[in-house]
């Protein structure tokens, strides 16, 4: 029974840690499927986390915070779009620049506005997204097996977490069952075919970037005003890159993306859990060994040793209309 509670607790933190990854990963999925490489996910997560926390601290409303978080991500996406769609610049460089921009500006503005060494004020109450208790969760908590599962693992997350999980089937449906999804996939594989059919490549790619911004904006908001009670320096801590790795690992597909993000979240949760735990024979597992696993797994996949990750064909190439 004790092991079971332990397991539920690890799975619960797995879910919590996976949510920003899921949102960022799906965000990247839309833009990369449309042929735009988004190294800037990390910066967008960080920027929207700051925007959300700053707005929530000033206005006292978590919802306005969410709006600001998504707004920051939209602004950054606009820069990325202008650089990579209109000016046909290098998308990787633009993404790298956005990551630095977010790292620099969030700390700089945070210090100038709040004078707390880059932190935003502690948030509480309505300034944050609190846990939602699903119906009957407290009543069922004492029921063996299912009770713990329902009341700990499924119930008690905040609204953004549920949004993340709903976003997966929605993305799968949009991508594979709708006309927009078909066009989105086509523009990432063969933009010329779409252009010939009279569909604007530019408009489609901007639409993809907007969806990307909304999702990653929610992810950043989750980091600062749902998971934590405020913004702190570099709080995205490489999650954008992990989401990118997860996206490759999932071969740019929504359901595998969910599974990969949960796996990476699980490794993250395990890392906290295993600190100082002695195993028979091998002794203590160094935290670094678990930290490094998502990166190693992605590299092994990229090297083609387990399956093959093939990116959308037109990914990273600006589209130039023939004249």
């Amino acid at each position, binding site marked *: 029974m004790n092991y079971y509670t332990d397991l539920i607790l690890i799975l619960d933190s797995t879910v919590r840690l996976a949510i920003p990854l899921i949102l960022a990963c799906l965000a990247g999925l839309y833009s990369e499927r449309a042929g735009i490489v988004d190294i800037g996910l990390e910066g967008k997560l960080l920027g929207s986390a700051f925007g959300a926390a700053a707005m929530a601290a000033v206005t006292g409303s978590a919802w306005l915070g969410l709006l600001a978080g998504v707004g920051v991500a939209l602004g950054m996406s606009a820069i990325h779009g202008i*650089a990579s769609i209109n000016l046909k610049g290098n998308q*990787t460089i633009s993404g790298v620049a956005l990551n630095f921009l977010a*790292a*620099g500006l969030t700390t700089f503005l945070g210090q*100038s506005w709040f004078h707390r060494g880059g932190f935003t004020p502690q948030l509480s109450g309505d300034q944050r997204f609190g846990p939602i208790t699903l119906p009957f969760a407290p009543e069922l908590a004492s029921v063996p097996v299912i009770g713990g599962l329902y009341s700990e693992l499924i119930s008690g997350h905040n609204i953004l977490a549920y949004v993340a999980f709903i976003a997966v089937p929605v993305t799968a449906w949009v991508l594979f069952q709708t006309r927009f999804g078909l066009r989105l996939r086509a523009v990432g594989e063969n933009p010329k075919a779409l252009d010939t059919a009279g569909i604007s490549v530019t408009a489609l790619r901007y639409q993809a970037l907007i969806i990307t911004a909304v999702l990653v904006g929610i992810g950043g908001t989750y980091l600062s005003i749902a998971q934590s009670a405020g913004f702190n320096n570099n709080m995205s801590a490489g999650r954008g890159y992990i989401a990118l790795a997860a996206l490759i690992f999932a071969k740019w597909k929504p359901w595998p993306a969910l599974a990969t993000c949960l796996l990476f979240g699980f490794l993250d949760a395990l890392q906290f859990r295993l600190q100082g735990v002695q195993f028979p024979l091998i002794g203590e597992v160094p935290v*670094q060994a678990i930290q490094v696993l998502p990166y190693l797994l992605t590299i092994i996949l*990229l090297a083609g040793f387990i399956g093959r990750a093939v990116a959308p064909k037109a990914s990273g190439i600006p589209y130039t209309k023939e004249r």
Partner: protein
Amino acid sequence: MSARVPLPRWVDVALLPLLNVVLAFLIGGIVVVMVGQNPLEAVGIMLYGAFGYGSGFGYTLYYTTDFIFAGLAVSLAYHAGLFNIGPEGQAYVAGLGVILVALALNGQPWFLTVPAMVLAGGLFGAAWAFIPGYLQAKRGSHIVITTILFNFIAVSMMGYIISKILKPANVGSDESAPIDAISRVPQLRLFWELFKNSPVNISFFLALIALAAVYWLIWHTKFGFAMRALGHNPTAARYAGISNAKVIMITMALAGALAGMVAVNNVGGVQGRLILNFVSGAGFVGVAVAFMGKGHPIGVALSALLFGALYQGGQELAFSMPGITREMIVTIQALVILFTGAMGDMLRPPLERIFRPRVSASAGDV
């Protein structure tokens, strides 16, 4: 639309990049104004901090050394069409090579230890960059993604090695045993009073040599030609009988070796021991330096100096103007990458319009 008129050469190599940098700084200045500070006053303090007195200037040159190496590591790979975002990790791993030989030769005079540190740092950095190079060349894994991932792997691996293996029992913080003073890379203040207590050391001259060597390699050797051919058109390079896979792997190894020199400067010359995260972002500054310098050693030298001055001046600024933190420098760095790298051609159409009449007049009637 009419065919594009090529810009005069000086506009293309000098004016356009300069305008882009000015644009980046203008926007940086606007941000400073937005938070209610005076950007001109800030520039004044930074200039004084970076060049106004001996030890400040020494710090500027110390940062410049790091940024030249990192900038060259990005530039060299970029000539072969490879975007190396990994100098940060390559320099970190090179630190292991540097400290291992330095501790093995501890107590020997510097003219014996320094060449060994350069060699070991270069080898370790090269090895760390070679793996993504190999994965790109032989397995087709995208170098941008793999070098990013290798930065993270380096952080975990080095964290473990430093805190669990290299750390002596009697030391509290996570760092290796120190190198004896006579075995360290000599600092320039030993020869020149001017530099007072600044950490600039003879790695600076190594950086100048590296600039010349990279120039020679890219434009005056057969291998450099193969690199550039690959960078311009991999298919053509292949048909010309160049082994693209080989060029990719060697180029990445060389880039890694250049990044490794950051470790010689810091581990061997400044801290005298291996500490956690000693690279502290210098590898990433290399990306900005490379794009601003257009991958040319002269450009890299100038932009490394500019960033060196920004970093040192930024420290000064943080003391004198509490409203401005060092992170403003990271913002400037981002704007420079954005405007000189991703949006580098934004000002091209207006410039083409300005310079068109003169060009067509000199070309006569066509």
